[in-house]
């Protein structure tokens, strides 16, 4: 066993260095980093921009109105600018031309139907408030009493519902998508490496020194490490932003889910990696890789579709439980289901154990396909040729 690992590690080291040295690794990782930074910073930049509304009035806006709107702007994070026009027609024209958000003359409020959000309502409320104050003052109330009446506020709104869980489910869904993409990319890379070794006949030299399982596990470990590294690159700006600004809107419960996602990536990756490796060994020319891995990609896609359709719609249904336990769909279905918050821990552990056991089984199947397929050259190997029948 000691030698087995020593040689497997050598294979992995070589493949890892070759990957890290390659131009495609540098390009892809750079792009991922840029994407991740953009995903974190762009919403920040957009989010910090304060909204500005413009109020057009005939003549200067009354100071009471300005005071009331500025106060509203401070609490609701918007700025109001004021423009004065000669008469109500000019005010109306300013709103129509887009020079002002809202126009106010006499008893008329001009609004455009394109923009402005709640601003017209705010202005209308301010007008009503000011008018009411004047009437109350006229009715003999002291300024203090008027102010008291003005300070009456509607009850504070607190959204309850399932906001937290929705955020968490969103995180679960994101994890599912990332896992699916990561396994697809890493799997393709593994199949390509195996196909390259076969088409350049390196595998024959390797098989004279190594067991097929050593070549396969070494390659899978190396590419798994590279992919994990790229996932970290993708996640780092996000994690930093959460620490520094705490304003990404990531629900706090997601941290545990993300840790779990890494574990699921490893399990799911190991499971599919050996299928991809076996598929790669079937090709004759390296250009055939894509069609050779199609069956594996299809299985992966079905597992993913199952995860996002069945599990997302009802995480507690029998089908969801089955999808989250079945090894080929579990790596994508279980994280999504787990994020729904009501998965018994034993099911999680069972799903993990089943997936791990399946990948161990697949190592031996893939090794046998690999050994047989590598020596058949000159045409694309059919599965029938390497499965069943007599041993070579």
């Amino acid at each position, binding site marked *: 066993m000691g030698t087995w690992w020593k040689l497997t590690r050598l294979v992995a080291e070589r493949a890892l260095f070759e990957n890290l040295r390659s131009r495609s690794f540098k390009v892809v990782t750079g792009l991922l980093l840029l994407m991740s930074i953009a995903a974190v910073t762009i919403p920040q930049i957009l989010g910090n921009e304060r909204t500005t509304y413009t109020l057009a009035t005939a003549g200067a806006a009354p100071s009471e109105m300005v005071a009331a709107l500025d106060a509203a702007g401070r609490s609701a994070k918007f700025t109001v600018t004021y423009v004065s026009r000669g008469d109500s027609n000019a005010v109306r024209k300013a709103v129509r031309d887009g020079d002002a958000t809202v126009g106010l003359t006499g008893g008329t409020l001009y609004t455009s139907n394109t923009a402005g959000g709640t601003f017209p309502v705010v202005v209308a409320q301010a007008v009503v408030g000011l008018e009411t104050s004047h009437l109350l003052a006229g009715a003999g109330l002291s300024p203090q009493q008027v102010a008291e009446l003005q300070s009456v506020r509607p009850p504070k709104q607190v959204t309850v519902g399932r906001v937290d869980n929705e955020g968490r489910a969103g995180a679960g869904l994101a994890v599912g998508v990332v896992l699916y993409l990561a396994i697809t990319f890493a799997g393709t890379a593994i199949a390509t490496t195996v196909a390259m070794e076969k088409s350049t006949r390196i595998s024959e030299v*390797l098989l004279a020194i190594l067991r097929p399982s050593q070549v396969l596990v070494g390659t899978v470990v190396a590419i798994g490490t590279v992919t994990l590294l790229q996932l970290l690159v993708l996640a780092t700006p996000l994690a930093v932003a959460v620490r520094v600004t705490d304003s990404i809107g990531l629900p706090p419960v997601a941290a545990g889910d993300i840790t779990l996602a890494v574990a699921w990536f490893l399990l799911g990756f190991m499971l599919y990696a050996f299928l991809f490796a076996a598929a790669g060994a079937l090709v004759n020319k390296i250009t055939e890789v894509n069609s050779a891995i199609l069956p594996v990609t299809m299985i992966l896609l079905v597992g993913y579709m199952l995860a996002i359709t069945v599990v997302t719609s009802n995480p507690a249904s029998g089908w969801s439980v089955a999808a989250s336990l079945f090894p080929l769909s579990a790596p994508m279905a279980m994280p999504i289901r787990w994020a729904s918050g009501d998965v018994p821990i034993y099911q999680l552990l069972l799903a993990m154990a089943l997936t791990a056991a399946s990948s161990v089984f697949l190592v031996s199947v893939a090794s046998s396909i690999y050994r047989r397929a590598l020596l058949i050259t000159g045409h694309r190997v059919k599965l029938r040729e390497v499965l069943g029948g007599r041993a070579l």
Partner: protein
Amino acid sequence: MGLEIRDVEHSFGDRVALDGVSFDVVPGVITGLLGPNGAGKTTLLRILLGVLSPDHGQVRYDGRPVDEEDRRRWGYMPQERGLYPGMPAGDQVVYFGRLHGLSNGDATSRARVLLEELGLEDRWGDRTDKLSGGMQQRLQLATALVHDPAVIVLDEPFAGLDPVAVVSLSETLRQRARAGRTVLFSSHQLDLVQDLCEDIAMVDRGRTVLQGSVATLRASSGRRQLRLHVQAPNRDWLLAYPEVTVVGDEADDLRLEVPADIDPLDVLDAARAAGRVVDFGLDLPTLSQLFMAAADRTLDRAGVS
């Protein structure tokens, strides 16, 4: 003790590739596994190296069945090139050295010595796919020799080499054999490797058709031809050797085929007694002629080049 191949059989489905092949490879004696394309040479070498398992029979090394640990100390050069295209040449040799159990330091220093011996010392950092075909071939040899293997197995090492490369590869193999290594290579270019092999095993259609020392096989074959330029008045002296056939007779030049049981030197003595022998020579059959005779083939249906 070397390598013993005992009664090895292997089939791919219904197609029999090897049908009971047996021969020995002795350390220090360069041995050629010869035969036409499709004779089963590559299959046999793959079985030797453990890439394939035989259906029947055994490969023994030092008197016992060969195992994985033995094979890790062997060196193998397959028929088609097997190198990582994007890897620097030196790293490639070091990597294979380490796979064969060398430490990083040992592998590096041995790789340097070997690349120097093979004339690749200034190519250490070059990407493998930037090297010429001949250089890649030598690099491939380096990956097979870096751990100074006790057993060196090469599949068609001379295929596609220019004459200079053939000479230099032959020299490398002779050096290893002189150092006591067990060297076995396959080739379908029988006459090209005639001078390199000391022992041969000839296979045809999965069977061994001829084996032993090249010198003995050639000398003991009935296909020896004695070439004479003899100034004698007549050919009466030849009457004493009725088994000797006259293949060519032009003026004073005679070409005689001498059967295995007659000593050509006796024939030469008889010629000298009859007249003045100006020139003479003994032409031994080429390996391809031996193959034709052994495999009972005629030129038109044999695949020998």
